[in-house]
């Protein structure tokens, strides 16, 4: 095989070195999301230790995948075209589970995203719960609500949410969002 095909081995090694349990790259649709979720659910059920943590990982994973999907959905509703390629990985080491998701974002949406996460990160657990209560009972927002999803992730993970925006060009960036969940 030509050297151009070495990439598959490289990718696999990178995944292995980072203890990746599952990774998907490509366009995310509801079917894929559902399959990834169910696959992880079944796998987590096999592991008998720390079932509480596994439920947590599961719940956060659902929210993360739905958040990527909704990000693209919003872009679609705005009639703007963006590269639908996304990445989702679930990995772990002895201390943490890591959920990392990546997707393209328009540069003019970065500030909103940043502010949303910074606002949540600045709160202590009671503040986060208070915010959750506000969002969950806000009847003016009927559709999927990323504010609610993010604060839900923050409460469940009980950790700071980390993000990064890598500029791609004048209009788009690649947005990486990471959640850490303590193993026990």
């Amino acid at each position, binding site marked *: 095989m030509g050297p151009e095909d070495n990439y598959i081995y490289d990718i696999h090694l990178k995944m292995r070195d980072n203890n990746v349990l599952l990774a998907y790259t490509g366009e995310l649709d*509801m079917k894929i999301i*559902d399959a990834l*979720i*169910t696959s992880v659910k079944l796998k987590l059920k096999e592991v008998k230790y720390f*079932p*509480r943590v596994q*439920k*947590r990982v*599961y*719940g956060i994973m*659902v*929210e993360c995948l*739905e958040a990527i999907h909704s990000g693209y959905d919003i872009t679609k509703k705005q009639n703007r075209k963006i590269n639908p390629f996304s990445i989702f990985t679930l990995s772990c080491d002895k201390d943490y589970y890591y959920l990392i998701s990546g997707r393209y974002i328009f540069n003019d949406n970065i500030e909103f995203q940043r502010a949303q996460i910074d606002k949540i990160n600045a709160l202590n657990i009671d503040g986060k*719960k208070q915010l*959750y*209560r506000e969002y*969950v*009972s806000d*009847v003016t*927002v*009927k*559709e*999927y*609500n990323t504010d*609610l*999803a993010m604060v*839900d992730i923050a409460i*469940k993970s009980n950790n700071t949410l980390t993000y990064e925006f890598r500029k791609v060009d004048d209009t788009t960036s690649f947005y990486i969002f990471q959640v850490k969940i303590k193993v026990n």
Partner: protein
Amino acid sequence: MTPLVIESTDLTPKICFRPDKKEFEISGESRPENVRKFYEPVMDWIDNYKDHLHANKAKGSEKLVFKFKFEYFNSTSAKFLTSIINKLDTIKQEVMPVEIEWYYDAPDEDMKNSGEEFSKMVSIPFRFFSVN
């Protein structure tokens, strides 16, 4: 009053509201593709049931017990559950006593916490049951 029974799927919980048997239960997993579409009939049913109770002058001495037995629900579902629980709160304030039984898997403290959060939003008493 016609019962409301919706079987569960991988994405949606089972709904079993049978007034004749005094059974009111939601159980399973909730992350519907279209949350509104799934929960709207449930909320409508509760509204109708409240009217039905009013019309039949339900006695305050009786009690309605709603059982929530979730394995998992996503944040969007949480919004609709809030609405449902608020509707039940209205029944409690206007018609008759209502109680919520909140079941959770023993190790799943997050699910217990979610129930506690809901209980803080309404005047309905919650009873918690851990299931092994």
